[in-house]
């Protein structure tokens, strides 16, 4: 069952690395992006978009940092205020998913077992989240927002418990970048 796989996935990956690809459907238009994801529970992650643009999102355990290389812009806000906007923040929690979301089995598709996670607090920018698992690994996520837009994420080359230095999740704004606090 997906919920059991989620628990095994979280318990079995104190750290994690993977590639992800993202397709967003917004009013019939689709935008694709891809990048890499690294997690160190609880609360530390790097969600790094590399294509078609470079945008690095870092959770350092306390604050969320977003660095847009082309704009030379860094934006930061408290990590707990950011849970709604980044699945990485959800994934990097040790029990954030069970704590902040109501979980429900929604069945199997091929070899993927799916669960639905609906946010307990409504201020979340996602109306619905679905997570797909195979062999206790997260392989896909689908996120619907309040405007009916759909984000499909697929994960590949997932490595569980790779050695990642804690330093790797510390973000220092690059020289020349403007830093702005978002909230």
């Amino acid at each position, binding site marked *: 069952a997906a919920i059991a796989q989620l628990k095994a996935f979280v318990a079995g990956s104190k750290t994690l690395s993977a590639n992800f690809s993202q397709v967003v459907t917004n009013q019939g238009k689709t935008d694709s992006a891809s990048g890499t994801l690294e997690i160190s529970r609880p609360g530390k992650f790097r969600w790094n978009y590399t294509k078609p643009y470079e945008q690095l999102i870092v959770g350092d355990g306390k604050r969320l940092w977003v660095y*847009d290389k082309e*704009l030379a812009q860094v934006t930061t806000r408290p990590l707990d205020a950011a849970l709604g*906007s980044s699945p990485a923040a959800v994934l990097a929690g040790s029990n954030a998913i069970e704590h902040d979301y109501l979980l429900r089995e929604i069945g199997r598709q091929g070899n993927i077992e799916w669960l639905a996670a609906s946010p307990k607090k409504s201020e979340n920018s996602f109306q619905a989240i679905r997570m797909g698992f195979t062999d206790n690994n997260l392989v896909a996520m689908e996120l619907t927002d309040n405007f009916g837009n759909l984000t499909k994420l697929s994960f590949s080359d997932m490595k569980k418990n790779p050695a990642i230095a804690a330093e790797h999740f510390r973000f220092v704004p690059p020289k020349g970048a403007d830093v702005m606090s978002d909230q």
Partner: protein
Amino acid sequence: CATQQPFQPVNLPGQAIDTPFSVSGRLAVKVDDKGSYGNFDWQHAPTRDVVSITTPVGSTVARLTRDADGVLLEADGKETRSANVEELTNETLGWTLPLDNLVWWIRGVPAPNAPSERLADGALQQQGWTIRFFRDEGDTVSRVPKRVELVRDRLSIKLVTHAWQQP
């Protein structure tokens, strides 16, 4: 920071023709030292604009629709209407989005129906804004700038585009 050169806008002869476009990018808005940043998706037609501000992962934070009936902003589960974009954004966001001019500036050209002036460093001055256009180093082909910066008084808007569709 990104290595980019000034983008020299093409001076269009006579009346510029407004063609539809669809563009995705990111923008940062700053008033004094407070501000916000987000991805944007803008579908433009002469009679209708839909601008969505989204999180990096694609969830919409706000959506602005402008058509013959006026302007609608949907954000935080609320709907706000107004006569024009400048008034609406000023009321709800505390800063004015010059959408009418941005239709042209995002393409690297002055808005056709207002006087404009070119500064020595290539920047454009129009309707109280100073607008700078940049293109990627070595890109001599693109007809539109990669990055646009607009400044007026204490307000600065920087945007960069990564996907253009000009049907």
